[in-house]
């Protein structure tokens, strides 16, 4: 005799089936749109929606930096101090994505914040610092990044430059909360021995310098501030003069590429460990023509006057195409990285991984403007 094991008909399985059926009915009632397209009209931050946030307030930090406090959507999974998040915001009507460090540890009110320094020609940073208004809906991704402190503690050196302080300030605020009674040092932070070498153009241009000074005054960190106008530009070879026990410390650095490269060379030579964080990838200025790499493996050297579509077809590639005059959008394919030039009016479109996302470009009227990677 054989017995068949019936799966227990539990209430939860039944209700799940019912929920699935309800979702199918809702989808049938809203096709070709999704029920969520309608729910987004009223509750964009609800659980189950694409992750978004709403700007609640903008606090100026210096003349050209501000902290943006955001209420994240219900599905925000939290973060570890030092992590960053990618935020998508519409600037002049165009969606732009950037990564910024979260500048608070997890907050009791569930809000998150980023501190942004407006960089010259920085489209998004200038918008966030000077134009962003409370109430604006922004698009978010979950926090990410390996630039975090081991919870067990240890001896650390943090080298930060300019807005590179932002992930570090998030870590420090979490370790040493600032209250009305002054800076606290909870037991979980007892074993964190931290030196911060902070580099900035000048004292007034230094974001969070007051926070750093307060932490230093409270004795929970040692701050070595270096201002270009006072001390000259920092030479990493002299780091041991500033931090004599450098060799015992684990270094975390965040700042511009030049500093990080110098530090990497220095630490490499000295056999020291280094964790770095850099947000902005080095950009290539748009040129005239360039090497176009396709995901399929084909690589073409193109001049600045031949449409990518024509060149790819001449090379035997099968390309989507349409009117061949820039009106039908039948030939658009994603530009991963690099710049293309619109042959009709010279307009440059640049895709930067992590910032613009893939940009769908019309290959029939765009020519290469520098090296590009096209997803086709």
């Amino acid at each position: 005799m054989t017995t068949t094991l019936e799966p227990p008909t539990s209430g939860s399985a039944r209700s799940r089936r019912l929920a699935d059926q309800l979702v199918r009915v809702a989808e049938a009632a809203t096709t070709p749109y999704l029920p969520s397209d309608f729910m987004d009209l009223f509750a964009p931050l609800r659980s189950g929606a694409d992750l978004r946030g709403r700007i609640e307030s903008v606090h100026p930090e210096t003349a050209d930096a501000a902290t943006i406090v955001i209420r994240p959507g219900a599905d925000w999974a939290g973060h570890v101090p030092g992590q960053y998040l990618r935020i998508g915001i519409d600037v002049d009507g165009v969606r732009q994505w950037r990564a910024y460090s979260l500048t608070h540890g997890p907050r009791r009110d569930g809000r998150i914040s980023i501190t942004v320094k407006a960089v010259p020609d920085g489209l998004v940073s200038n918008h966030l610092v000077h134009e962003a208004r409370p109430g604006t809906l922004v698009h978010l991704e979950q926090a990410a990044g390996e630039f975090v402190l081991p919870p067990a503690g240890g001896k650390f050196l943090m080298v930060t430059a300019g807005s590179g302080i932002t992930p570090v300030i998030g870590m420090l605020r979490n370790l040493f909360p600032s209250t009305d009674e002054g800076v606290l040092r909870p037991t979980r932070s007892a074993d964190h021995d931290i030196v911060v070498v902070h580099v900035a153009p000048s004292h007034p241009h230094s974001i969070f310098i007051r926070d750093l000074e307060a932490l230093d005054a409270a004795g929970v960190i040692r701050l070595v501030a270096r201002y270009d106008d006072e001390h000259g530009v920092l030479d990493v070879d002299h780091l041991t003069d500033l931090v004599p026990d450098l060799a015992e410390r684990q270094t975390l650095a965040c700042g511009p590429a030049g500093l990080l490269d110098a530090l990497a060379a220095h630490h490499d030579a000295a056999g020291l460990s280094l964790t770095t964080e850099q947000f902005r990838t080095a950009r290539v200025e748009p040129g005239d023509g360039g090497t176009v790499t396709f995901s399929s493996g084909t690589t073409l050297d193109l001049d600045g006057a031949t449409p990518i579509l024509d060149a790819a077809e001449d090379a035997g590639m099968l390309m989507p195409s349409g009117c061949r005059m820039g009106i039908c959008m039948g030939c658009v394919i994603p530009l991963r990285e690099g710049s293309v030039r619109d042959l009709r009016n010279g307009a440059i479109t640049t895709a930067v991984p992590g910032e613009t996302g893939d940009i769908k470009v019309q290959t029939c009227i765009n020519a290469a403007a520098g090296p590009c990677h096209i997803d086709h």
Partner: protein
Amino acid sequence: MTTIQKKAVLGQTSPIAHLTDADIEQIGIELDAIRQDVLDDRGASDAAYIRRVIDTQRKIELGSRAVLLFSAFPPAWILGTAGLSISKILDNMEIGHNILHGQWDWMRDPKIHSSTWEWDMASPAEQWKHSHNELHHTYTNVIGKDNDLGYGIMRVDEDQTWTPASLAQPLFCFINAVFFEYGIAAYDLELGSVIKKKQTKDPDFRRRAKQVLGKIRKQATKDYVVHPALSIPTGSFLPTLAANFTANVVRNLWSNSVILCGHFPEGVETFEKRSIEGETKGEWYVRQMLGSANISGSKFLHLMTGNLSHQIEHHLFPDLPSNRYAEIAPKVKALFDKYDLTYCARPMVPQVASAWHKVIRLSLPNGWLATTNTKNAPQQLAVLYKMATGDRRTRRLLGRKLESEARAAA
């Protein structure tokens, strides 16, 4: 109408005879400058515009569908049907048509992008984009190339031979208008020519046909099953079904009328296939200028036509955001005046009437309508009867006679 190229041969005035090659290239340069001006300050307020329209449309749709849950109550039926018709028209025209043109791709919003958008119509967006954006917008008003001219089922030009079947054209045209979304789907599928060429077994056609049927099934399930079923508790199954059918027909009639106005009124020019060989950008622009007609009217009318009331501007710059057509229209009109070209614009009613007049005129033999008045109507009807029932030779002889009488009368 007669193609621009034939007009020149027949000794009629070609509307572009006075333009030199240099003039035509200059027109292209000036139009490029108008386009560039809009691109240069396209930005946040434009993005806010399309989001506002989408937001409004969705709220009207939700509201109307909610009201229709009680559609057994006549005022609710009227309100809900009117709201749903408006919402479907907005979805089809100002939102769907224009997003699928890529007018809003520059926002880089993955939810409002020509490559991801789908609309509340029988024709799948992907297929419509091919037949509309690629074929119609590239080959606008070129006889034999632009199937939007009569959708391959109508006689749209005097040069096409008249046959007795042409007499049924107004009826076909009306039926097509009522079921326009299915007409478009069949047309995007190139159903007519596929059947004619016996290519119904072609795998690509099969794939596309499956796609269309799937879309139609989903659309019909929504409007004729799910929403009526949701109305059962108030006893409104049939009223809701009728309301949804009515809204679809209203949308069909409206969009068909707007589209007829775009390229079919009297005064819009057509072109020979040969004339576009080696066409320059300037010549392409001129063809768009003369091949399209506008509808003049209020801001509300422009919104409800998806700004296809600015058909001329739309055909010149199909990828500019539709909310900008009104502002560039005076500049485009000034260019027409400068080069002594006719900017074909009339209010909605005369424009629709003009298009239908042409449908009827071309359903009859050339010259018949022009030579018929109340006095000679019986004799003329007898001629028409003879032509409709006679053989090809009879048709040719009587047709020639009518044409020469019409020329003499003119």
